[in-house]
């Protein structure tokens, strides 16, 4: 009887976030009669498709026990770089994308180098990257939005396949790839291993430096993709774009159950965390809650998510001890 009870508690701890999502949907459906519609679902999906891509990278980094605050700036600087390539240099779209993604990868690797080779705390290293890359975005644009480049670039964000927007499909594809990579590929094993026990990993012959570089590099790369999608959607390269992505991404990842100390968490649960954040934002907008209040709520959600994650860790340990 007791055991059954424990199983239920564990289930609740594992899927509590799903319950929270359902509750949130119910609340908004009451609050706004337009909320419970297929249209809203697409609004949410479209909205989370960009931060969702960022969430994947953030998950990789957080699994190693690190954190990447630079993702928003990487997305922003990638968007304006692409805009400039397209407008000022009239580069073809494919070349622009490759160029921007290589740069994004490099930004990520730079963060990774600071963390591994210079032994900097990830929080500080990526905070530095966040600020300098944002500065870079303002420098290359002179602080002005870049628009008026080829319309073709905007087609991607508008396009749909069987009614599903391309950008949503892209996000889903990326999630599928990385869920596979985390569970079936060496990369995933190493990320979990390094986050779970760095010293044991090193003594098992794993190059911890390489694994971490990979995580930060991929996080940068994925943030670069997010920046391109963002540019396609807005058709205007804003130097301030992507601001605050790290906040949404970190909250979603923590909500998805990824441990802040690394080594534990599943990417498919991050999808739910991400949907919760998207639902929250869209719901608040539809209910006419103003921007400032939205920010307050998001901050509180992050704090509650972290508190919940610590709490559930404690409960879990207690269950293991008593079992």
């Amino acid at each position, binding site marked *: 009887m007791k055991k059954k009870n424990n199983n239920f508690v564990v289930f609740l701890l594992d899927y509590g976030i799903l319950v929270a999502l359902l509750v949130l949907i119910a609340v908004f459906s009451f609050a706004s009669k337009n909320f419970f519609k297929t249209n809203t679902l697409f609004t949410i999906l479209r909205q989370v498709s960009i931060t969702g891509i960022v969430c994947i990278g953030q998950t990789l980094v957080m699994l190693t026990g690190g954190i990447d605050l630079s993702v928003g700036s990487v997305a922003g600087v990638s968007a304006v770089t692409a805009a400039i390539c397209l407008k000022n240099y009239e580069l073809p779209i494919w070349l622009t994308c490759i160029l921007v993604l290589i740069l994004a990868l490099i930004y990520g690797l730079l963060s990774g180098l600071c963390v591994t080779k210079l032994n900097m705390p990830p929080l500080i290293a990526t905070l530095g990257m966040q600020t300098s890359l944002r500065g870079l975005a303002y420098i290359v644009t002179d602080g002005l939005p870049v628009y008026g480049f080829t319309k073709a670039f905007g087609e991607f964000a508008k396009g749909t396949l069987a009614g599903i927007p391309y950008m949503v499909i892209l996000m889903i594809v990326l999630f599928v790839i990385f869920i596979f990579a985390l569970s079936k590929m060496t990369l995933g094993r190493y990320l979990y291993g390094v986050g779970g*026990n760095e010293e*044991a990993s*090193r003594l098992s*012959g794993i190059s911890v430096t390489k694994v971490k570089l990979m995580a930060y590099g991929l996080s940068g790369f994925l943030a670069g993709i997010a920046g391109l999608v963002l540019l396609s959607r807005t058709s205007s390269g804003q130097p301030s774009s992507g601001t605050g992505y790290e906040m949404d991404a970190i909250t979603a990842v923590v909500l998805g159950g990824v441990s802040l100390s690394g080594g534990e968490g599943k990417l498919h649960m991050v999808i739910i965390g991400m949907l919760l954040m998207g639902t929250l934002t869209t719901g608040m907008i539809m209910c006419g809650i103003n921007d400032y209040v939205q920010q307050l709520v998001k901050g509180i959600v992050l704090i509650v998510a972290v508190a919940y994650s610590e709490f559930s860790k404690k409960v879990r340990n207690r269950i293991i001890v008593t079992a």
Partner: protein
Amino acid sequence: MDDVILRVKNICKYYPGVKALEDVSFEVRRGETHAICGENGAGKSTFIKILTGAIEPTAGTIEFEGKEYSRLTPKQSMDLGISVIYQEFSLIPYLTVTENIFYGREIKKGLIRDMSAMEMQARELCKDMGVNIDVRKRVCDLGIAYQQIVEILKAVSRNAEFIIMDEPTAPLTVRETQVFFNIIKRLKEEHVTIIFISHRLEEVFEICDRVSVFCDGRYVVTKDVQEIDRRGLITYMVGRELSDDYPTPRREIGEDILKVRGLTNKNVKDISFHLRKGEILGFGGLVGAGRTELVRAIYGADPILSGEITFRGEAYRPRDPGAALQAGIGLIPEDRKRQGAVLSLPISENVVYSILKRIAPMGVIHSKDEKEYVDKYIGELNIKTPSPGQLVKNLSGGNQQKVVLAKAMATNCDILIFDEPTRGIDVGAKQEIYALMCQLAEAGKSIIMISSEMPELIGMSDRIYVMSNGEIAGELLSEDYSQIKILEIASSKL
């Protein structure tokens, strides 16, 4: 002089499966300097922790100044005037000597610290103790010996009448030790009671009045230092009989496979030894003698400064553990939870952790190969678990150790280094690990085993090197094995 300040009666401390202290009873007299000796794991630290209130005894009583306690809380212990000087200092490096001495109970004039009053008192204290320290210096600018002394001054300034010193001289040079001893002599004049723990037996004879010996968690004897000599003391420390529960060797020992010459790094100096094919080579010595540091260097986990290693006739110098594994040298580290296993991952993922590349062409893990490896080692090592998916943190110590062992064995190394292979695991699992080590040796693997457990070291090894203070202090062949000899060599370079 026969006034007893501390009397412990029938103190026991049991951990699941381990008796850390069993039925310990003895007395400490007021004003004496009382040494406690024993091998690693004899129960000295457990005993101290009970006195400081860090842990609660399972049974028994502590009588201090005539009052009986069934346990002490840290606060009670402090209030009774018991203070401990640990090897690691509890000083704050960037504060001055004075600030450290008065830390937490500063003399104040109104709201402001009265620096000059504190400095005056600190100076007086130094004069009383016969030491010459600039009380305005920051602690981090002092040598280790003086830091140690500041620690004592801090205790004395709090009117500590009962000071426990846990290996206080371990980091000190001979000259520093003398300075330190002068302080102890001063404290004796002040009738401060001291419990002194040291592996350096000479010091026990030089500075202590009486000595008590612990062995395997039991109290053995208390002697006046005049009544006993070094050899007698060691005999008491060794105490136990060798049991015959080690597998009899049936292995053939071949040619040299590993030769180390003049290996030196931060922690070890000028190490030379050789290891033969099919041999179990033991490394004995005290904790901190540099054994772990030596094998870490050979495994590529710590840098090598100079020296040559030849492995299978070729020069070998690993960049990192990955390179060592690639070459065919594996390590089972001493601390399985911190260095051995990834506790948050399942058994299966731990077992194949070091060989992922082999079972993952193009980075995608071949699950059939993985399962094959995992099943093989779970079976071979008899890892007791309901499923390979069980998280390692939910396993018993012995099974965790087997998982770490499986991970190293999976790499199919020619040399396996075991650092304290049976620390903290139950007797059954110990036997299994011994049997496995013998099987490996019989199969032509070479084994280096570090062990602080004398019977294990003697029972398992074909040959033993004894390290002392970062050097190899002696080599023993199986016909010369004796615990006394090993202990003597182990403390020879201190």
